[in-house]
Each structure stands twice: as C-alpha cells, then as structure tokens.
C-alpha cells in the first residue's frame, strides 16, 4: 500500500483542525481542561493518555456530539457548528471506540449511508427515479464499492455488518467514515482488540488514507502503533494536555512515564474518575 516512513511532514502545511482552549465540564467534573490541538494537512496526529484521560470526550467535542463549555474548534478556518451531522458535512468524519455500525445493513449499505452528506437526492427524486437520480445512485454505489475495495472488504459488500469478523467491522467503520469525503478523519482506538497482523494492516490502511490527502487524528493505547504512525503525538492526562511532540519528545518526558505507570501526578487538578 504505502511506505512506512514518517518523513512527509511539512510544517508549513495549512491547519485542518484548530482546537483552542477546549474545556468540557460535566457539572463539577472537568473532563477536558483547556486543550489546544492543531492538525495540519497531510498529518497523522496521535492522541494518547491513560483510561479516563478525556480523549474520547475531546473527540466528542470536536465532532459536535458535545458542545464544549469553553473554547473553539475550527475546521479549515471556520468555527464548527455544534451538531454532529453538520460537522460531518463540513468535512470531519469519525469512527467509534465501541464499534457502532448499522448492524443489520450490509457492508455496502453502511458505506452508502456514509455518502449521505455528499449526495442530495431527496424523497421526491427517489419516488420519481429520474435519470439524475439513477446517475447519482450509481455513482454512490461505485464510490462505495471503491471504498470497500480500498479497505480490503471488496468481497464482503453484501454481507450484513453484524456477520463480519471483528477486524473487518473496524475496517468497515473506516470505509463508512471515508465515504463522506472528509478532510480530517478521527479514529477512536482503531486497533483495540486486534491481533498484531491486523494491527499492522490497520497501520498500512491509515498511511494509505493519509496518502489520499486526508489528515488523521487517532486515539490509541498501542504505543508501537502510535509511534510508527504519527508525525506528532499529544498526551492527555486527567483532561489536560501535558506534552505534544514527536516520538522522542513524548517517550522521554517523565510526566508521560509517570502517568502511564499510574503514580499520582504533581500539579494536576483533583482526580477525575471518568471523562470517558
């Protein structure tokens, strides 16, 4: 698929995502505390942190599932509207930590649903079935098949999503997210539960996605995966971003080591139990 180099980073590239000062509070609990993060065109950025650090909550703030208490999220220079479907329409697609496919639809149908924002055939054109509708539908199907092929699911188009093996369900989620032609793809633990071969395949897939010109922001616990993949990695601990940088910077930061070893960290706010 693609090379396994990480030397494609161009610091001058335009920012795709700019999150600044994002705070998310649930009552008295601050799940995300003043996080800044920028993702540039053509970048793969990692987001790591211990369980409950607020990674997924931060994702949900980016995708409009939550409205951040404070701070702004900009996509290509415009502030994102706080509705999931509008965020997707703007160009950010995501996958879920616990797979959320449309279990009783076929793989192809799942990807077709992902095309929703990039097509506009409404009720009446569906009833009338004019030439325009047929063309759009055929194009959608072709694009969906391409994406399935791209993710290595070409032969599984007519299988129900629920009948696919776990690794393929993960891939299907990515294919479905790519169907909305995103400029930024958010992957929430894409290799959770995968064996080493599957993880390697997933790595290749993420590189291939980057080569399509899609920036990727990925949450992961698998350090090998993250450091192979990412140009930059941000570390979130108890809702705060404590460090951001390349592999060496992160690996040599003692706060990161402490956080992962589970020792209490000096200078943070009160313990936050579950920021998702």
């Amino acid at each position, binding site marked *: 698929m693609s090379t396994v180099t990480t030397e494609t980073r161009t610091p001058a590239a335009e920012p795709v995502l700019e999150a600044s000062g994002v705070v998310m509070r649930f009552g008295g609990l601050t799940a995300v505390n003043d996080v800044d993060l920028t993702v540039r065109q053509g970048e793969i950025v990692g987001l790591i942190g211990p369980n409950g650090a607020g990674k997924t909550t931060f994702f949900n703030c980016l*995708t409009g*599932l939550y409205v951040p208490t404070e701070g702004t999220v900009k996509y290509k220079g415009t502030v994102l509207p706080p*509705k*999931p*479907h509008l965020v*997707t*329409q703007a160009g950010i*697609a*995501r996958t*879920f930590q616990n797979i*959320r*496919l*449309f*279990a*009783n*639809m076929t793989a*192809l*149908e799942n990807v*077709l*649903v*992902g*095309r*929703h*924002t990039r*097509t506009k*055939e*409404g*009720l009446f054109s*569906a*009833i009338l*079935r004019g030439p325009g*509708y047929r063309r759009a*539908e*055929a194009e*959608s*199907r072709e694009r969906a098949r391409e994406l399935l092929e791209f993710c290595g699911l070409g032969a599984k188009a*007519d299988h*129900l999503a*629920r*009948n696919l093996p776990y690794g393929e369900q993960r891939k299907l989620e990515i294919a*479905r*997210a790519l*169907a*909305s032609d995103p400029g930024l793809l958010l992957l929430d633990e894409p290799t959770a539960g995968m064996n080493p071969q599957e993880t390697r395949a997933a790595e290749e897939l993420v590189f291939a996605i980057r080569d399509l010109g899609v920036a990727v922001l990925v949450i992961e616990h698998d350090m090998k995966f993250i450091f192979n993949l990412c140009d930059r990695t941000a570390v979130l601990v108890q809702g705060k971003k404590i460090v951001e940088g390349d592999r060496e910077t992160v690996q040599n930061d003692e706060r990161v080591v402490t956080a992962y070893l589970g020792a209490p960290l000096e200078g943070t706010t009160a313990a936050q139990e579950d920021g998702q």
Partner: protein
Amino acid sequence: MTESTTHETTPVLPLPAHLALGAAVGGGVLAAASAAMSWTWTPDFPGDLTYYGSPAGLQWLALVGGALTALLALAARGLKGLRWLSPSGSGNGVLFAALGTFAVCWYAVVAIAVELDGLVNLDPGGWLAAVGSLLAVLGALGLPLDRRRTVRHPELHWGLYAALAVSAVLRLGLGQGWALHAVPPGIRPLFTENLWFFVALPVAIALFRLWRLLDGWLRIGRIERPLPAARALPGWAEILVVTAVFAVGLGVVEFGVSTEYGELFVGFLLLTAFATAALLASGAVGRLRELTARHRAVTTGAAFAAAGAFPFTQSSETYVLIGTNILIFATVALGLNVVVGLAGLLDLGYVAFLGVGAYAAALVSGSRFSVFRDLHLPFPVAVLIGAAAALVFGVVIGAPTLRLRGDYLAIVTLGFGEIFRIAMNNLDGTSGPSLTNGPNGIAAIPDVNLFGFDFGEAHDFGLLHLGKNGNYLLLMLVATAVVVTVFARVANSRIGRAWVAIREDETAAEAMGINGFRVKLIAFALGATLAGLAGAVQAHVSGAVSPDQYLFSSPTPPNSAFLLAAVILGGMGTISGPLVGAALLFLIPAKLEFLQSYQLLAFGVALILLMRFRPEGLIAGRRQQLEFHDVQLPAQAAPADDVPTKAGA
C-alpha cells in the same frame, strides 16, 4: 455449526422405504378420493357433504391436501416430471402436507361427529378420509426426514405442573362450591365469573407439554442445504410459471374470502398453513423465489393483475366488499410500515391520519351532511386534499416530538389518536365549532364519477360483470399500487437507507452526516400522507365517515392496534408482509364469528406465539431473517441494479 453434526436424515418410524412411500402416496390418494364420496348422510352439516361424485366445502380441501401429499411424496422420491415440485427432495414437505390433510380431514370428521351428535352420522367417505389421511401421516413419518440431532427443550419446570394441578383443583372446587370459602367474599365474583380460566390454563399447559413431547420425538429441522441448480427454462416459460402461480394464488385467496361458514374457513386456514410449510420444505417456494427475483416487474404485474381479477371471479357483492376492505387495511398498514418498519418510529395513533384524510375528503365531496355541502370537488382533487391534510397533521404532530428519542413518540401519537377521535365527536356545532357533524359523521358521500364512469353503478364489459363494490375495489387497487410503488422506491434509496440507519443507531447515523430530526420528520410525514391518501379513498368507498371508525383498538380493523399488528405479524420493512398480515387480520375476525368475544384474547395469544417462534414476521426480508436467526443463508443475487453483468433470462 455445520449441518453434518447437527442434522440427520432419518425416518421417525422405522418402516421399509417402499412401504412408507406407498403409505404416504396411497393415504394421500385415499383422502383425495374420499372427497368424491359422501361424508355424512344429512345435509345438516354446513356445506352439504352428502353427494357422491361432487365434492363440496371441506371435501375440496381434502382433495387438494391429499393430492398434494401424494404428489410431493412422488416428487421427493425423484419421479421424473415431478421434480420441480420438490427440488430439495426432503421428506419434510411430504410430512407437512400429510399433516395438513390429516388436520383438515380429522377436523371435518370430528366437527361432524360433534355438531350432529355421534359417530353414527359419518358415511363411508368420512371414515375413508380419516383413515387415508392418518395412513399418509404414518407413511410420511417413515420417509427419510431432515431432523435435528438434539432435543431442543429442557424438561418442563415442575412449577408448571403445580399450576396445572392447582387450577384443576380450583376449577373443581369452585364449580362445586367448597373452594369458595377459601376466597375472600370481596373477590369471589372474580373467580366464579372467570371459571374458564381454570380450564384454559391447564389446557394451555398440557398443549404446551404435548407440543414439546411431539417436537422432541419428531425433531423436524430446517433444511439448510442449498437447492440444486434449476434446469434453465426459456424466459417466456419462466414468466408463464410466475403467472400461473399467481393465478393459483388468486384461486386460493378467492376460496378463502368466499368461504361461507366458519368450519370451512378453519379448514382453509389449516390446509393453507400446512401446505405453505410443505412447499417451503420441499424447496418449491425457494425455486419460485429465484424466479420472481429474476422477473420482478412481471411478478408485481401478475400480483396486481390477480388482485384486479378478483372482483370478476365473484358473484356476490359481499365478498367483493371484503376484498375492498382488506385492500384499504393493507394499504394503510403498508404506509405504517414506512414509519415503523423502516424508520423505527413507534406510531400508536396512525389510524388518526387515515381519519384526517377521510374527513378532509368527505368535507369536499359534496355530501349533504358536510358543512361545505355546496362544494363538490372532483375525486382526484379530494384525494389530494385528504393526503395534504394528513401531511400537515403529520408535520404538526411530528415536529415537536421527533426531537425526542425513545418512547415519547409512542405516547404522543397514542394521545393524538384519541384527541382526533374526541375532536371529531365534538366538532358538531354544540360542543365546538360546527365541522364534522359530531358522532353522526358525514354520511351520504356521493359516488365517485371519473371521466363519466360512475362507480356507483354496475357495469358490464362483454361477459365480465363489475358491480359497485368491484368498481371501488379496482379504485382502491390503484391507491394500493401507488403506496406500493412509493414504498418500494423509497425503501431502497438514499433517504430509505438513512431511515434504517437511524433505526439501527441514531448516534452513529448523525455522525455519518444524517440530520436525524429532518429524516425522521420526512418518514413521519410520508407515512401520514400515505394514510391520508388511503383515507380519502376509504371515505368514498364506504360512503360515510364517523369518529368511531378511527379507534385505537376495536374488534374490527382498521384501528391503530391492528395496523401495528398487521405490520409486525406480516414482517416489518417488507412490502408483502403487511399486505399478508392485513389480509389475515381482516379475514380471521370476519370469518370466525364464534371468536367474537374472545377475539382480542386469541389475537394476543397469536402474537405471543409469533414472537416466540417467528419474530421476523410471517414474511421476512433477507435482512430480518439474518437478524433473528443465526443462519448463514446462501448468498443471494444482489438486487438487479447492483449487478451490471447479470445475464438476463
């Protein structure tokens, strides 16, 4: 879970192969032949079964069932020229057909003996039917059958036996009075007036136990091996087969609708159910499904042609009216299927939209009871107004409620259904503004007149006669066709997929860029519009609208509860499902009058049994089948537009 370990092909009874086959064929032939003989000496039994050489009523069923058993037995054996009837070659089909024949014959014989008091009333034909059908069942049990290896059921819980014993003792004690002292005086009537319960409960438990014993003995299983490849037929022959099947189907439905007495209808239901199971097991249905999938347009056309031919086959207007009412009910159920089956929105007040359409159309129909009595708009305009009014109400009800998730919608729609009925009752000029003529409703809606064709008059086309109800049946059929087309096209489109996605996982759907609220509102509004359209036609067909036609629940369809039941019974998300469900739910109460007071009870029991044994509904789409049963169906051909290089037949 390979079938080689879980399934076996063995007979239940260890009979020599040729003896079993001979018994199955011979028994079937005997049962069929008995139809030509007299079953009872007196014409008192409904249908007059006294004639030699001329089958009547239940005897026709015995004839069909016996013939089907014999043919299936020969076909399963691989007799040349009959193999099309049993492509799977399984003995299960023969067994089901034999059981169907047995059920019909024994039901008839027992009914004769019971209704006429004694076995003495049976003529040789009756005895022959009973013996022949029993022989067929025994023979079929000796054929190699597809069976599960394992007994599925655990032993019955002792608690059930205790309940059985307690209720039997209570029944006895309450009947003789001595158990009454154990009951506080305040609630004694509860027991004395519901003695049937203490009979029904043990009977139900015993039946359940019997069923399990039988099932453990027979271990009849699904046939999961793929059908052998069909012999290629020329395209015209395939189309001919599809047409012939629908002609037979029309005959079956016609027989069912025009049954004149309850006994015949019970027999009809028994035989139809078993024959369907038999043809499913023999693989004939699977083969037919391949054909209809290849000729979808022909299939749809043939189905509608068969429905359109129905009024011409009837001499009695009453049965044509039943057909029309079934169509109304089925059309509305299909509209509800958009809301419930596709978008997954539970609408408990759907019948109100039917009412909105009917009232709107009635108001502009020129009826002298309408407040706009001078306004007589042409029928197509009235229909459009009915649909538009329902659309408006759909949006008004849906807009505030569809933002919520979960069960709120069910409660709001339930309320709306009642509000509609009560409002229609009160908008009579005294309790409220004068609009609907209150409980009397709007009667005397003039007959439809389209392009000079008066629907109120009988018409003759050469040899074909079409009465008033026939006209309206054809009119309703057009409305059904519209709804079927809309459903079929929308279900498999961008918006239809969005509905299913919302039903499956709303959060994920929104993350895929679907505006949940908007898409749900479209589903709700479309459902309402289709109901309004059907309602407008219904108002003209029945000639009157009144508030009590639009209840949440009543013994007669259409009402909201029955509509929902038709969708679930038939199969959610499919087209033919709600149509079949609606036909059954309409016919059964109409035909089985003795059920009247227990109808809702029987209905509830039927639904529970269905949910237990066939949760996907009678007719399941591929998706539902995969959803509820963990079987890997053989990969089917994708819809035609998916496969660019599929060789046409």
